[in-house]
């Protein structure tokens, strides 16, 4: 399962090389004009049958959240900062891999017997232990700017899978499956993007290069459908695991083009493909936020896999949602015509 390799591959924002290689290996037989642009995006074209005259862009981001080496303590402890959105509360007691040599380390926590912290210990006060006996040993093994990834392994749990970076390696895997299948009525311009987690950087230049008429972003989004929290009874779950891929109508970064939302829903209903809407109540943005306002504007929409515990080492996703993400997009693209975008 390529999803396993993609999830296990390490690719914190700006260090997407291992993911890029897996993707290049997977798409080079069916995708033309493959290139790696100045920022590291993988761009290419899946040739279509030519029946529909639209420049269609499909994007999924390769990078994952992580951390970065920032400094050292005298006892060899490594100070670090977040790369992308991290909740500092998930970090104590977590295993990590530091730097290009993937040095195993752990995030320290003062024992419960000696620890009176009641407020969240900010990331600035947390330390990574790689076993360095002192500052010099830590400095000789790593250097400031080294990226740090969660150390966790992809696991199949049955109807679900668990692993790091399913946001958005699952979207990458779906896009790979889509370009490996039958051609579409139009040329599909694919972009596997870098640096989404630090501000949608890769998608911005990819959109400028592709100049699409319409864009689809394949994402993996938040889901928190746990038993109700009595302190926050009105808390939205954002999505429901197993409810099908989630169509974004709006998030912090963009408003999806309603014509594309309608098209996806119509096709999903006609074909009996499960789907749901991502609640617009909560924060979060995607590459569509950069793509939709590139050049003179691009009608855009997001289709995302619901996934619990994203931006952590052990996120959980439903395999049926994942399979339906590519099914829904394949059906929608087969039915896509300029009329969908008529005003």
């Amino acid at each position, binding site marked *: 399962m390529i999803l396993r390799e993609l999830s296990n591959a390490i690719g914190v924002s700006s260090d997407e090389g291992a993911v890029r290689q897996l993707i290049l290996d997977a798409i080079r037989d069916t995708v033309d004009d493959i290139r790696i642009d100045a920022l590291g995006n993988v761009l290419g074209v899946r040739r279509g049958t030519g029946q529909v005259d639209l420049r269609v862009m499909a994007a999924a981001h390769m990078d994952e959240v992580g951390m970065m080496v920032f400094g050292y303590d005298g006892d060899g402890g490594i100070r670090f900062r977040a790369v992308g959105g991290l909740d500092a509360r998930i970090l104590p007691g977590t295993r990590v891999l530091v730097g290009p040599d993937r040095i195993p380390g752990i995030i320290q926590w*003062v024992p*419960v017997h000696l620890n009176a912290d009641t407020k969240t210990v900010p990331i600035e006060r947390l330390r990574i*232990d790689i*076993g360095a006996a002192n500052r010099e040993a830590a400095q000789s093994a790593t250097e400031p700017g080294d990226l740090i990834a969660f150390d966790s392994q992809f696991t199949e749990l049955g109807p679900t899978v668990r692993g790091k970076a399913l946001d958005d390696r699952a979207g990458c895997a779906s896009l790979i499956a889509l370009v490996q299948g039958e051609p579409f009525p139009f040329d599909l311009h694919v972009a596997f993007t870098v640096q989404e987690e630090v501000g949608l950087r890769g998608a911005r230049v990819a959109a400028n290069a592709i100049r699409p008429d319409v864009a689809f972003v394949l994402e993996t989004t938040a889901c928190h459908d*746990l038993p109700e929290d009595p302190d926050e009874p009105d808390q939205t779950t954002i999505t429901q695991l197993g409810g099908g891929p989630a169509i974004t109508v709006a998030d912090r970064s963009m408003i999806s083009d309603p014509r594309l939302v309608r098209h996806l829903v119509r096709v999903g209903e006609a074909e009996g493909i499960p789907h749901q809407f991502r609640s617009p109540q909560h924060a979060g943005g995607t590459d569509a936020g950069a793509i939709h306002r590139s050049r003179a504007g691009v009608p855009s929409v997001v289709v995302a896999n619901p996934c619990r515990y994203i931006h952590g080492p052990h996120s959980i996703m439903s395999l049926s949602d994942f399979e339906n993400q590519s099914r829904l997009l394949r059906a929608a693209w087969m039915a896509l015509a300029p009329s969908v975008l008529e005003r």
Partner: protein
Amino acid sequence: MPLDLKAHIKHLSGLAAPSGYEEAARDAIREAWAGLADTFEVDGLGNLIATKTGSGPEPRRKVMLCAHMDEIGLIVAEIRDGFIRAAMLGGIDSRVLLSQPVLVHGRRALPGVFGAAPPHMSRRRTEYPTLDDLWIDVGLPGEDVAELVRVGDAITFDAPAIELKGDRLAGKSFDNRVSVAAITVCLEELAARQHAWDVVAVASVQEEVGSHGAITAAYKVQPDIAIAIDGNFAAQAGANDDETFKLGDGPVLGRGPNFHPQLFKHAREVAKAQEFKHHIEALPANSGTDAWLIQVSREGVPSLLISIPMRNMHTPVEVIDVRDVRRAGRWMAALIAGLGPDFLDTIAWPETLSEEGES
């Protein structure tokens, strides 16, 4: 074949055996000690009691080594819609649980994780959740979980030990499997040395919930002297210096009312004579270990505590230095090999019973 101590510690660390559910540890430790002790017994609470017979004439004196084999863990308290709410077995710190992987020991071991809301939506990021706020997710539909999991099933950290740089390891349950490993080292050393006394090695149960095992083990063994071996706090960022000991600089000998003063002096002299690196820890009252209960077993037992520094105690990433474990084992072996038939006379209270005193 000489003991591969790192591999031995990693093996013991990986066993799932929280307080009250120690079977896996008991079986593995019995296997590890099989060639090193002469007899094995299991008492009513589940303590493993291994005896290595001494060479002295009968009736022989007995030294008891006691390391608890249980680990902190959790049990299933409630199941709702396939999600599992847990209760503590021992001193779990709920501040490290968000996003931690666990094994739920139902009809089969199910990989689970403590669910953490993504940063996009968690509103209360300034405070840590309590255990009641948390749910374990095993990624299965509610019907499957209801079939596979019952209230009371044990839950342990899913945290295989890893090697850090130098001689350090990180993993769960080093508190207190490293002390079990120190006993293994001691028994190995004694295999090649004469010792007059019987050595009774105990892997005790239920220390983390109140040293229940040590009470019954000490009663059954009736030792003449006892050494408890447990984890201690290693120096680390954010912990105060007085209560912590530098990792890799040797095990720790406890000093205070929990320990027999003459026996303490003797143990320190053995360490000095053998040039074993060690620390001394001031413990003004309860040591918080099995030693506290062993000392007051039956009519009283002269007791010691040797402890092994570790960082991040009671988390899935406890960090130890293997050298400290080896030193603790060798120290105990040196002490035991030096116990002659009349050793108890040498630690007798110095005060005299007769009015004139004796010269």
